[in-house]
């Protein structure tokens, strides 16, 4: 498999295909959304997990030709540790107090961590596989294996895959990669771990 593009985001900054830029202060995803002049009002309805995953995918895919043409051959397979915990705790506040009990449907819909795969699929017209898995920690081996195994579906020829993690009180932690089925064996555990640790190959 071949690694085509990647983006790493952590508390230290953003590495887009190895090129570093500082993280905007505050809500980095919203700052970049505004900076890039994107028009996608649904962004503001998303929970934090969706916003960061969606915005990172925007940066990653920005240069692609025919980007919004509907396609079924690209899977979106994401992993994280905390699921939708950030949003779950927010939803819980809408039902916690019996005297102020107003469960919010707009928050409830984001209490599923796979919604971020759906948001990316909707934006880009991806009608292929979308999957979300939880692991105790970032695991380059399992991520690479899972993406290789996803090619057992003959309909899948490329993947947007990676780690999109946010948790209350912690810095966001992302590594998104665009890979395809071509034989160039730079998509492996060693390289993925290198990207996670250093942001570049």
């Amino acid at each position, binding site marked *: 498999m071949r690694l085509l593009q990647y983006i790493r985001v952590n508390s230290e900054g953003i590495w887009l295909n190895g090129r570093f830029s500082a993280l905007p202060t505050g809500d980095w995803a919203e700052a970049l959304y505004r900076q890039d002049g994107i028009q996608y*009002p649904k962004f503001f*309805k998303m929970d934090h997990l969706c916003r960061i995953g969606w915005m990172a995918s925007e940066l990653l895919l920005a240069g692609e030709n025919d980007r919004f043409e509907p396609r079924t051959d690209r899977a979106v397979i994401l992993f994280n540790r905390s699921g939708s915990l950030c949003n779950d705790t927010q939803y819980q506040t809408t039902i916690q107090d019996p005297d102020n009990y107003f469960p*919010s*449907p*707009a928050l409830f819909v984001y209490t599923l961590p796979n919604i971020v795969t759906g948001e990316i699929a909707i934006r880009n017209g991806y009608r292929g596989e979308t999957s979300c898995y939880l692991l105790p920690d970032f695991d380059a081996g399992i991520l690479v294996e899972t993406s290789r195994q996803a090619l057992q579906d003959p309909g899948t020829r490329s993947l947007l895959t990676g780690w999109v993690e946010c948790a209350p009180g912690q810095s966001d932690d992302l590594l998104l990669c665009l890979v395809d089925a071509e034989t160039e064996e730079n998509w492996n555990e060693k390289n993925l771990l290198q990207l996670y640790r250093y942001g570049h190959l």
Partner: protein
Amino acid sequence: MKKTYYNSIDMDTFKQELKAEIIRVLNLDGMQPDDINDAEPLFGEGLGLDSIDALELIVLLEKNYGIKLEKPEDGKAVFQSVNVLADYITRNRKK
């Protein structure tokens, strides 16, 4: 408790408040109350609202005005426009 509007100035103020509240709960980024035309449909074109927004407006009705809409289908009539919604709230509000 129950508020009623005896003149059009009060009603206009109420509509402005209502629009500000809609913008807030539906996260309509960059919009101001004056961007929403009182007579135009809330759903369909225009604001780009969807089924989740309709459900969230149902919560707004209950939370702010004590009005319970049991069936989401009933929302269609009530959420036609700001004019219709403001009128409906004024007639049915319990707080």
